[in-house]
């Protein structure tokens, strides 16, 4: 069954080796200096479709694809010239050849082995068909993602330029109509012109908002150490007029430092605090901005004593252009929270709201804590 020369001398340690090889989860082949197979496990049988009997005593080249078989003896000699444990063909794609001639992608680890003065190499073989498949799939998905990102950028450009062109013409000419002919037209005609002018203005706003929304990803900046107390102070400065007019009281403790795109984080705080003022009740707005340590994340919240809303709209308010009030009551296109959501998600966090009609609202978002590496040099 096995030739004498190929069989390592029997001993207790050899029997142990055999057991270890058999129990290994990967394919194991032991080869002598001449390249003859002296030991295989059942994984190899399964992988290559040969029985143990067919392999023992045969040249290992049997399992090497015919296209590279010629080089193999030379490479094996190279290994025995400098025998140390290493991965075979690092950086190259390796394949094995099955009995039926088909090939399988493999990863091979080589280990030199001495038994009774004879030198062997023990090869551990892993079938990486599945991994190759996942890698190809991942690559495909990455390309898909890249394409869709490019589409989005293209879309942003179309919005900013191509859509605005005809809109500007409509807007300019309706205004010219009003300017030149309003005293020659009756009230109806003037109303119709007003509606058209209004609609073009609103469309311009929507286009700008869409652009703003798509730029969260396409124009986002790198994350840097950002002091949230400073950011909130900036947001309050930007909202000064609204705060004064509504006599709003805004309280905030010392807030943490996070890794963030600071201008985007400013946008988030400004939108949330701005909303808290905008959707106020009859009482003067009292708004609390706070942060708590939640392990891996910082948990921020902006709490108000305003109108609040029914929680059945809890998800909808974060969808672009979704509004809970008429334009006449509360102006705006319904972009603010959608932008907040997109920004927080870009930072690896999440945002949600808790509220009830007449009970105020609390908007919370979780942000991953600043990575240690970025903390250096604050």
């Amino acid at each position, binding site marked *: 069954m096995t030739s004498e020369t190929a069989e390592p001398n029997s001993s207790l340690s050899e029997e142990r080796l055999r057991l270890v090889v058999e129990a290994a989860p990967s394919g194991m082949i032991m080869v002598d200096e001449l390249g003859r197979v002296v030991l295989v496990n059942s994984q190899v049988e399964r992988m290559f479709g040969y029985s143990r009997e067919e392999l023992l005593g045969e040249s290992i080249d049997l399992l090497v694809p015919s296209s590279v078989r010629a080089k193999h003896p030379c490479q094996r000699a190279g290994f025995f010239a400098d025998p140390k444990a290493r991965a075979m063909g690092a950086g190259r794609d390796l394949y094995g050849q099955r009995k039926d001639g088909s090939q399988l992608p493999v990863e091979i680890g080589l280990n030199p082995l001495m038994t009774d003065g004879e030198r062997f190499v023990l090869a551990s073989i892993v079938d990486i068909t599945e991994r190759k498949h996942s890698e190809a799939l991942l690559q495909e998905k990455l390309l898909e993602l890249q394409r869709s990102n490019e589409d989005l950028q293209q879309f942003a450009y179309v919005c900013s*330029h191509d859509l605005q062109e005809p809109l500007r013409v409509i807007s300019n000419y309706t205004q*010219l109509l009003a300017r030149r002919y309003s005293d020659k037209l009756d009230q109806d005609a003037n109303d119709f012109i007003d509606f058209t002018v209004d609609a073009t203005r609103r469309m311009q706003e929507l286009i700008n908002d869409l652009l703003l929304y798509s730029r969260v990803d396409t124009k986002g900046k790198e994350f840097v150490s950002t002091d949230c107390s400073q950011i909130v102070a900036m947001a309050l400065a930007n909202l000064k007029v609204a705060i004064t007019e509504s006599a709003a009281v805004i309280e905030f403790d010392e807030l943490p430092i996070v890794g963030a795109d600071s201008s985007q984080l400013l946008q988030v705080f400004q939108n949330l605090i701005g909303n808290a003022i905008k959707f106020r009740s009859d009482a003067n707005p009292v708004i609390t901005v706070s942060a708590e340590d939640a392990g891996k994340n910082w948990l921020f919240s902006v709490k108000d004593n305003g109108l609040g809303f029914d929680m059945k709209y809890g998800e909808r308010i974060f969808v672009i252009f979704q509004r809970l009030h008429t334009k006449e009551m509360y102006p705006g296109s319904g972009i603010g929270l959608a932008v907040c959501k997109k920004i927080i998600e870009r930072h690896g966090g999440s945002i949600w709201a808790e509220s009830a009609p007449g009970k105020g609202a609390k908007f919370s978002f979780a942000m991953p804590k600043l990575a240690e590496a970025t903390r250096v040099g604050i």
Partner: protein
Amino acid sequence: MNKRIRVLLVEDSRADARLIVEVFKEEQINVDVDIVRDGEEAMAYLYRQGQYEAAPIPHLIILDLNMPKKDGREVLAEIKSDAALSTIPVVILTTSQSEEDIQKSYKLHASCFVTKPLDLEKFVAIIRSLDSFWFKAVRFPANI
């Protein structure tokens, strides 16, 4: 001073070109305006080629950037590299808001860069300042 001011308007959009003419009318701005629809026509006009054999040299060129065939950037570069034409002031009037376009236009010696506004009132204000500055205050070189 009694010489009428001649403007060459290079604008591919008929609506935009007409709007400028209409606002000139609204504001009673009395200048001669010739309109060409792309960069190639503009250069033919300035070099007095083909149908433009008898074209006058304009005092001022109002130039759009995004046009078919030869765009405004190429036209500007060509005007400013021609000894005879390079003294003509060029006002860029475009929908572009890109910093790249602004930089490039000034590098190519545009006299100024104006973005077309959506609102008519703002557009009228721009035309008014064009009038009070370029058509009333500015002195043009004698060779024009």
